[in-house]
């Protein structure tokens, strides 16, 4: 199952990228299609933020260090810190709280 997933993801992702170079602009350029493709990542990313922050399989798990690390990362995002700073701040916070 994992190999099928790796191969399916690799092939699918490449074909999605290539698709944009092959189709004439007007096919996908319907304003509504464009809007949906633009907004889809907003919904998916917001869903992923919540699931990655609080889910453990099918359980809601409020893990202190994980949430604190996420919160510090979120403040860094809000303050428009560079991506690298966001990542290091989130990791350091969670790791240090687990050491304590």
């Amino acid at each position, binding site marked *: *199952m*994992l190999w099928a*997933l*790796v191969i*399916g*993801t*690799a092939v*699918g*992702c*490449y074909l*999605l*990228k*290539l698709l*944009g*170079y092959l189709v004439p*602009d007007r096919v*996908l*350029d319907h304003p509504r299609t464009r*809007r949906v*493709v*633009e*907004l*889809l*990542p*907003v*919904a*998916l*990313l*917001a*869903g*992923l*933020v*919540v*699931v*990655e922050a*609080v*889910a*453990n*399989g*099918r*359980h*809601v798990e409020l893990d202190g*260090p*994980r949430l*604190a*690390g*996420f919160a*510090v*990362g979120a403040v860094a*995002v809000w303050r428009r810190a*560079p*991506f690298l700073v*966001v*990542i290091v*701040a*989130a990791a350091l916070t*969670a*790791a*240090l709280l*687990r050491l304590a």
Partner: protein
Amino acid sequence: MSERRTVVRDSLSVGIAVGAYGFAFGAASVSAGLSVLQTCLLSLLAFTGGTQFAVVGVVAGGGGLAAALASGLLLGSRNSLYAMRLAPVLRVRGVRRLAAAHGTIDESTAMAVAQRDPDLSRVAFWWTFGGVFVFWNLTTFVGALVGAVVDPARIGLDAVVPAAFLALLAPRLRAGRVERRIAIGAAVIAGALIPFTPPGVPVLAACAALLLATERP
């Protein structure tokens, strides 16, 4: 000429920043149960970070193949839109087009469209692609090796994943009210479904928040 060098330097520094994220991906992927080889192949061949994280996130939660693949490919569909935007700028044919397709990701698109001049856009695209490709794959490999011996939670990587997704989402939240409404709706839907559906489904169901996209005057 110096303008060109500035673009090259900026493009490479994007690659280095993304490299840290590659480390987190490598570790997360191995701890989800993928082998080091499978992890590296995903970074080499799928080469689109958000999708890769989404896929291994579903696997880590115990979700099925269909849910993992669906959330990954839906998230990857934005690259089609980037490709449409880049095609008239890059004007590539044949093998170069096949290569350009592989490099069509968030970072290379953002760097290319930020340039005023088409020549600089092409420089930005290829150098960002190259920089991200090298660092993303190197750090994926190192992260996978580290993740195989250290629990990623001990180095705080479980907090990195949601924070990184939020960083990817942030520019869109600043783009408009419709985006914020969709994001809040999607977050509520996904959170509410966690206890009731198999892993992977909450994120897919969050797409229903697109129904909130009706623009109001």
